[in-house]
């Protein structure tokens, strides 16, 4: 039978675990706030670059560009975004499961993998995926420089014809409780994105009408519009990559926060249960001693 001392030890150990999980929860919450701010701060730029890109595209006769070129999809690059650390619930597992499903669906094609995050890199390597590039320690502090690097790399691979399509598998941050798994096509850039200037005109009517300006005035250029367009497209790709990195980081922190919150709660429950058990045993001991004293006294007086 477990003694009182055993219980005390168990309780102490659970308590210290709980302290760790609680601290991790607070750290994750703080990081989540930062990541969320980052997601919001990145939106105006993404919106404006898309708008400028569209208005440039609308003024051009042909929008041929290596990043827009469509080829039969024979070789695919899958960008898989995971975290660098675990203890975040099913976050990494979910992404990797989705990635595996994706690989199976596309198994007739040649798949290369770019792993972002240590967990994904290690697991995918172990499973024998063709990991051609990896970036780690990204999610702790997402900055634009890394998005630029990754965007540049995939743009280069695509333009050089090394791959025919680029997909990203990642977690999208919906809210603190919910992450949504996404498989998004990064390249080739969908021409519909550029063409929807007229469809979007309705939305941005506020901007258009405010200055009483016809949507299609010709621009003055300092340099050929084609050059500007070719310069803008990679920036758009980088902004997309940046958004995905930020989403994934925010989702990771949210997942870790929820996981650590439930771990802390489970620890509390366990402590309560153990304390109850311990008290029962203590009480049993006291009762036994009392009976012994009473019966001892009874036998002495008789």
């Amino acid at each position, binding site marked *: 039978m477990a003694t009182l001392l055993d219980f005390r030890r168990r309780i102490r150990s659970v308590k210290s675990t709980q302290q760790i999980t609680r601290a991790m929860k607070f750290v994750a919450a703080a990081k989540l706030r930062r990541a969320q701010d*980052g997601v919001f*701060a*990145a939106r*105006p*730029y*993404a919106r*404006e*670059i898309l*708008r*400028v890109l569209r*208005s*440039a595209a609308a003024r051009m006769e042909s929008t041929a560009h290596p990043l827009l070129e469509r080829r039969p999809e024979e070789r695919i690059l899958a960008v898989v975004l995971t975290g660098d650390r675990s203890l975040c619930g099913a976050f990494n597992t979910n992404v990797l499961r989705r990635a595996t499903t994706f690989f199976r669906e596309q198994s007739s094609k040649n798949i290369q993998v770019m792993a972002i995050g240590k967990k994904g890199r290690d697991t995918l390597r172990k499973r024998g995926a063709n990991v051609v590039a990896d970036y780690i320690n990204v999610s702790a502090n997402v*900055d*634009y420089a890394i*998005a630029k690097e990754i965007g540049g790399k995939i743009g280069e691979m695509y333009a050089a014809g090394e791959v025919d399509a680029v997909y990203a598998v990642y977690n999208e941050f919906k809210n603190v409780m919910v992450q949504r798994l996404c498989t998004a096509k990064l390249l080739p850039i969908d021409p519909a994105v550029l063409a929807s200037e007229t469809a979007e005109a309705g939305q941005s009517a506020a*901007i258009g009408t*405010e*200055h*009483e*300006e016809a949507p299609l*005035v*010709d*621009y*003055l*250029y*300092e*340099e050929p*519009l084609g*050059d*500007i367009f070719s*310069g*803008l497209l990679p*920036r758009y790709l*980088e*902004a997309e990559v*940046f958004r995905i990195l930020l989403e994934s980081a925010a989702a990771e922190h949210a997942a870790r926060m929820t996981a650590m919150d439930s771990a802390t709660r489970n620890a509390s429950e366990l402590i309560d249960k153990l304390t109850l058990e311990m008290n029962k045993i203590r009480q049993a001991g006291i009762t036994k001693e009392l009976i012994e004293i009473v019966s001892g006294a009874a036998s002495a007086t008789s």
Partner: protein
Amino acid sequence: MLPETIELQVVTPERHVLQESVQAVEIPGKEGYLGVLPGHAPLITELGIGILTYHKGSQARYLTVIHGYAEVLPGRVIVLAEVSERAEEIDLARTLAAHERAQAEIARASAGDAEWRQASFALQRAMVRQQAATRGGAGAGAQEPGSSAS
């Protein structure tokens, strides 16, 4: 009718730097500075490394801008910069240190290689920051005595 002010918006991938109604803007284009007044013809330009100046009332304010694009519409200017800071935000001491570091780096590296290019980019950046900070600091100090203490 021409608009009387320009809606200036400066955004970088990492943050929304500025949105204000201004009377005039000078943009550091890749091929040189260009001044924009309300009602300017639509224009797209690539940006270089330099200082963006905007005039609001009698005040001139400064921002550093490093690469990117700008779109000019009759009543609106959108600056999509890769990096941009307001003059008030710049830490002059740090910039001076970066300047010295970059100069040392350039002296050490051989001209033309990757390290040298990186260092000269850093030097350019540091110089623009310094200019903006001294101009912005001195200018703002003269017009708003209270702000120079901060």
